[in-house]
């Protein structure tokens, strides 16, 4: 015989459809996003792994001012590695102002994957990186003119060594609008001016199973070999240190756990909401439970019975969430990666670990939390249930309410009696407002970051030079500087990060407020560095040369308000002494307007606009996901609010019915029961927002740990106000629904079911 109690479940679903539908929606949305995201991550990781092997991703590269000899190539190959020239031409004015690197044909290392069309076969064909083509409105067949040479776009591709389009490795953010890469065949490359060719050599270890330290040792041997052949590499980057290669891998590595934690927190909140609702049901059905226990039903059977709705809803939600996650949601999720990263076509894989993380674990979290609550609640004797005496241990003292008018005391009593529902509501408000602050606050936070760069960076142009070049005649205000990049350990991630060493003039026109210390081992750090590394004046910072491994210790004598870089300011002469250079050496010009410097001398040219534009571009790639976050958080907030406040009204249906009999009108009843909820919502919002700010500040430490620079947490008060207004408006919509349901509670309720 089938347990007749099972018949209650579909009837319960029908009766309380709005409550279960709400929970189902949050659960399926959460699981849908979780599974789509995890599967996208898995699929992307797999495609990236395929790129590593099939497209023969480099282990690093170096650049030289002229081609290296065959003899040197042979020497390098003796280090158990393959070496291939991946030379390029730098186009600085592509599509007016964008930088474009046009690579020579690649056959051995870093072979591009075709996204659409084909690789260049004739000298007048060119294949663009997919994102670069998109950003500049290029389609197959489009004509492009590069340094006077005309090419036809024959395909869009993904470069293994440019999955993230960082114009410079030291850039904080990618720049897909103003930077791109393309490839032509060898004959096509020959059409460019040889004088402007940048000679880049990519290397790939024969043994791809080397450990990180073995890879580092090999890189050191390569540098030594280059030096011993009198070759000073203009740039040397291992794949691990190359943001264009490693950023995506690191980003994926961090996105995954963040999404999982987000899914688990939401599932736990929903599980607690279920627990509160089941708790209310048990309270109202106590005599029935007592009777069932008296008839011989075991505690275990009763637990299973009350557990079933939550388990059924979770199972159906996980099924629906997975189906939608793997069908409708996949393309929008892929687009998140396609918009930002230059990855080859992602092939969907059903990932067992992703399924375990986003479906199986939530399906386990739900019953575990509910079983714990049910076990505790149902541990009372059958007699206690029959007597409706569900307090554990000694009877708790009733809170005495002596102050205030009767409605005020009544309202307080409602809050105290429903504290379980209200506590869950508070947590729900914390989570939804946290998401809202994040979704709505990120744009102003980036704007503030851009503004702070604009305010603190007082020069318009920065020219990094390959060799010293004296400017004799210019109307511009300019200064010489020595700039180099050292490394320091970032304890939070236990990884080395770049620190720009900025050797400037003691009486600089561009850094007027800075008071540089006289000692050569003392410097002023940028506020970005102070905030990111938690440093203050008087501290010392240890730095390492990335190639030679030489160590330096700089004592911090002050902090300078500068958001543009993680950097240390020293007197140019002191920095040169520290690096054992000629005291007057320089490798950089900073100026208020453009300088007349030959192209061949410039290693890098950065404008203030570039620095600000990159941050803006980063924000635009987040735009669609932030809108989704906002909608999702409002939906969660409204559903939780509806379910939990509905539970309060249902629990008090009898009292409401009594009040109606006593002569209270609907308005007066609303004042007691709904105002209690209004007070709770407003207080919860007032407490939740400062808690959220603290949480986001903590989160920001981890978020900024993932990027090269530092973005300080700053959200204008109008955003908090807007969030509060949205939450209160959403509450009043829910409130209006409850006003109707209170009106519907019949007076007979009190007279009929009195046991």
């Amino acid at each position, binding site marked *: *015989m*089938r*347990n*007749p*109690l099972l*018949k*209650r479940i579909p*009837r*319960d679903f029908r*009766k309380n459809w709005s409550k279960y539908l709400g929970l189902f929606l949050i659960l399926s949305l959460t699981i849908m996003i979780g599974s789509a995201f995890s599967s996208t991550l898995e699929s992307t990781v797999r495609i990236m792994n395929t790129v590593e092997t099939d497209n023969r991703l480099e282990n690093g590269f170096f650049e030289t001012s002229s081609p290296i000899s065959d003899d040197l190539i042979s020497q390098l190959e003796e280090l158990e590695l393959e070496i291939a020239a991946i030379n390029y031409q730098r186009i600085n004015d592509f599509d007016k102002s964008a930088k474009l690197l046009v690579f020579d044909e690649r056959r051995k290392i870093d072979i591009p994957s075709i996204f659409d069309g084909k690789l260049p076969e004739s000298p007048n064909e060119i294949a663009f990186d997919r994102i670069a083509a998109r950003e500049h409105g290029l389609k197959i067949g489009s004509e492009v003119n590069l340094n006077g040479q005309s090419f036809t776009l024959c395909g869009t591709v993904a470069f293994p060594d440019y999955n993230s389009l960082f114009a410079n490795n030291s850039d904080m953010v990618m720049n897909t609008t103003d930077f791109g890469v393309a490839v032509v065949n060898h004959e096509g490359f020959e059409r460019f001016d040889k004088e402007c060719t940048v000679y880049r050599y990519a290397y790939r270890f024969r043994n791809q199973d080397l450990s990180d330290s073995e890879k580092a040792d090999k890189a050191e041997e390569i540098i030594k070999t280059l030096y011993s052949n009198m070759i000073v590499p203009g740039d040397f980057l291992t794949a691990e240190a190359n943001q264009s290669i490693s950023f995506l891998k690191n980003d994926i590595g961090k996105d995954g756990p963040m999404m999982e934690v987000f899914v688990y927190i939401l599932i736990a909140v929903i599980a607690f909401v279920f627990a509160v609702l089941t708790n209310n049901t048990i309270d109202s*059905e106590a*005599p*029935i439970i*007592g*009777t*069932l*226990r*008296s*008839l*011989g*039903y*075991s*505690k275990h059977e009763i637990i299973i019975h009350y557990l079933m709705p939550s388990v059924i809803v979770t199972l159906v939600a996980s099924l629906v969430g997975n189906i939608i996650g793997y069908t409708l949601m996949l393309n929008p999720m892929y687009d998140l990666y396609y918009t930002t990263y230059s990855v080859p076509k992602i092939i969907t894989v059903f990932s067992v670990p992703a399924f375990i993380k986003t479906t199986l674990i939530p399906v386990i979290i739900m019953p575990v939390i509910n079983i714990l609550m049910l076990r505790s609640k149902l541990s009372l*004797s*059958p*007699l206690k249930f*029959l007597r409706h005496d569900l307090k554990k241990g000694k009877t708790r003292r009733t809170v005495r309410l002596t102050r205030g008018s009767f409605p005020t005391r009544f309202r307080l009593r409602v809050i105290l009696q429903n504290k379980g529902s209200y506590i869950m509501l508070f947590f729900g408000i914390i989570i939804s407002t946290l998401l809202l602050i994040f979704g709505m606050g990120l744009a102003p936070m980036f704007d503030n970051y851009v503004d702070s760069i604009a305010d603190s960076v007082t020069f318009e142009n920065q020219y990094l030079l390959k060799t010293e070049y004296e400017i004799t005649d210019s109307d511009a205000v300019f200064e010489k500087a020595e700039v180099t990049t050292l490394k320091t350990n970032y304890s939070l991630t236990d990884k080395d990060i770049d620190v720009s060493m900025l050797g400037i003039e003691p009486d600089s026109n561009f850094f007027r407020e800075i008071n540089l210390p006289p000692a050569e081992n003392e410097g002023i750090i940028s506020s970005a560095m102070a905030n990111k590394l938690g440093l203050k004046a008087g501290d010392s910072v240890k730095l390492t040369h990335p190639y030679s491994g030489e160590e330096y210790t700089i004592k911090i004598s002050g902090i300078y308000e500068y958001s543009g870089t993680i950097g240390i300011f020293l007197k140019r002469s002191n920095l040169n002494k520290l690096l054992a250079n000629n005291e007057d050496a320089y490798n950089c010009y900073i100026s208020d307007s453009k300088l007349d410097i030959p192209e061949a001398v410039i290693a890098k040219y950065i404008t203030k606009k570039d620095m600000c534009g990159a941050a803006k571009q980063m924000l635009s790639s987040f735009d669609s996901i932030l809108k989704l976050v906002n909608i999702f958080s409002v939906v969660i907030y409204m559903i939780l609010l509806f379910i939990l406040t509905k539970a309060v009204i249902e629990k008090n249906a009898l009292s409401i019915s009594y009040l109606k009999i006593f002569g209270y009108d609907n308005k007066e009843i609303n004042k007691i029961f709904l105002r209690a909820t209004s007070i709770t919502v407003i207080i919860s919002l007032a407490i939740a927002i400062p808690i959220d700010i603290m949480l986001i500040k903590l989160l920001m430490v981890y978020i900024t740990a993932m990027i090269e620079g530092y973005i300080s947490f700053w959200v204008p008060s109008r955003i908090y106000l807007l969030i509060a207004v949205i939450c209160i408006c959403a509450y009043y919509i829910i409130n209006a629904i409850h006003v109707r349901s209170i009106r519907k509670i019949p007076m007979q309720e009190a007279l*009929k*079911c009195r*046991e």
Partner: protein
Amino acid sequence: MDLKCNDIKKAYGEGEARQEVLRGINCEIHSGEICVLLGTSGSGKSTLLNIIGGIETADSGCIDIGDECTENMSEKDLDKYRRNNLGFVFQFYNLIPNLTIKENIEVSAYLSKNPLEINELLKTLGLYDHKDKFPNQVSGGQQQRCAIGRALIKNPSVLLCDEPTGALDYKTSKEILELIEKVNEKYHNTIIIVTHNDAIKNMAHRVLKLRDGIIYKDIINETRTPAIELEW
């Protein structure tokens, strides 16, 4: 199956607040008897019924039903004991509101390996025509009939009724008592009824009168009055 209470003692509270509710109850109720536990409020009759029913434990002493003894029974054993031997009827019907009359009875049938035939029982209870109605669609008397049916369907050896007519009017109360009498005749269960209604004692085979936690009178009714003739 005979039922025996062996020196049952029960007290509530501690120290000065300690109150002895049962102070050594010894009695034997024979199989198939209707036994009425009579006493004023606080005499300990409901506590004794609950201990017999295994929903409350005695401080000392035990209940013997056939070969089973409740002493030192675990929670699981008590579940089994109630499942196999007992049926409960309470003053309030405690029916499951979203199950029909028939389904409410089936809830209990599910626990039994050898339940009674449900449609026949529904006819005996006078509920056959109402079997597909929900509890809020029938009268209080019909709800109590359903509660009796729920207790009986398992065909328990002992039926425990705690103030079964306490919430009913005179006419309906008599109908319920008649039903209990009919059930006893038909199924031969031992029925223990807790009541403060003195008139009900007349329909019983045995009357146990309690006062201050002890049985001060154990009466065997030589001549029983049919329930239909009871007056109060």
